[in-house]
């Protein structure tokens, strides 16, 4: 059965509103499949523990495309298929390592709501935090469907 489709409408959101938090476990499988299977990134620091340690890292760590994809998905899953991600900016801070029990908590807050060229837009502050601190901190712009 197809999952229930939920759309968030522009009229129903307000500045200052927090999106519900979502968390993903950060383990070796997610890091390796994110790099190779999802984003075709064969840089060995994202799949070879030996290579990563030789380069001075304690372990393999998540590639940027996967971090970006997780954050984009978090926003799009909340907004529903009628919404459109227009822009996303991420500042990269501590890496996502597959340490025991590590997870990334994803959060977002609506910071602006406006209309432009027929689009009903919102801007959000976004963040993904792991057991070491902030992994990504940034912002995004989305177009939401309007009730009309």
């Amino acid at each position, binding site marked *: 059965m*197809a*999952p229930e*489709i939920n759309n968030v409408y522009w009229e129903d959101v307000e500045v200052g509103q927090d999106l519900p938090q979502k968390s*993903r476990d950060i383990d070796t499988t*997610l890091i390796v*499949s*994110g790099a190779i*299977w*999802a*984003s*075709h*990134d*064969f*840089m*060995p620091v994202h799949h070879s523990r030996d*290579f990563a340690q030789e380069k001075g890292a304690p372990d393999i760590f998540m590639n*940027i*495309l*996967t971090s*970006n*994809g*997780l*954050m*984009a*998905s978090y926003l*799009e*899953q909340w907004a529903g*298929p009628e919404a*459109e*991600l*227009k*822009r*996303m*900016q*991420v*500042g*990269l801070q501590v890496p996502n390592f597959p340490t025991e029990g590590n997870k990334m908590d994803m959060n977002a807050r609506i910071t602006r709501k406006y209309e432009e060229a027929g689009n009903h837009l919102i801007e959000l502050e976004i963040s993904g935090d792991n057991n070491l601190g902030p992994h990504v901190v940034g912002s995004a712009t989305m177009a939401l469907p309007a009730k009309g």
Partner: protein
Amino acid sequence: MGKDNDMIKSYSGPPEKTLDYSKVAHLVGQSSPFHEPHDIVTKSDIRHWCEVMQDSNPLYTDEEYAQDSRYGSIIAPPSMVQTWSLDDMHDALQRFVHANQPFKEDPHNQLFDIIDSEGYNGVVATAQEQWYLKSIRPGDTIRSKITVANVSKYDHHTRQGVGRYVDIVFTFINQRDEEVCKASFRVLKYKPPMDTRHLYEG
């Protein structure tokens, strides 16, 4: 006092070498040609991505829903855009393991070679911004070029060490030359901190 000065002197090496900006200035503003991808966009690429991201957006994987949508067919998640322009396994291992990178003549690769040779051989990505301009669909050919947008003129003292920020811009176009995404990317090229372990040996 004189003795102290002698001690300090005995530990001071040659002055720290720093990158002369004029060595890289000619590359700022320069772009690579558009490079062809190894593969076209496919539904399976998209499904693999959605599986990892746990993304159940029906526009990406549900044919029936997508056909009735404003797009008329399945589209790719916009943040997936760079997937089709990365090195394949062979080129990636050549680049990262054997230091034999493809597209040596591209301005950004020339720039990184110069900066590396000046001792700034550490690298860390610090920020990325992407503007999604047009949807990507199965069957599309996504080509990309890289432009060197900016290089810091002077050294920055960062947590990683002394370094220079390099800003590059990616332009992604499809087979109809329509721009699908523009992205800016900032990396810090830094001098790995001096290895001081030998000072404590013996």
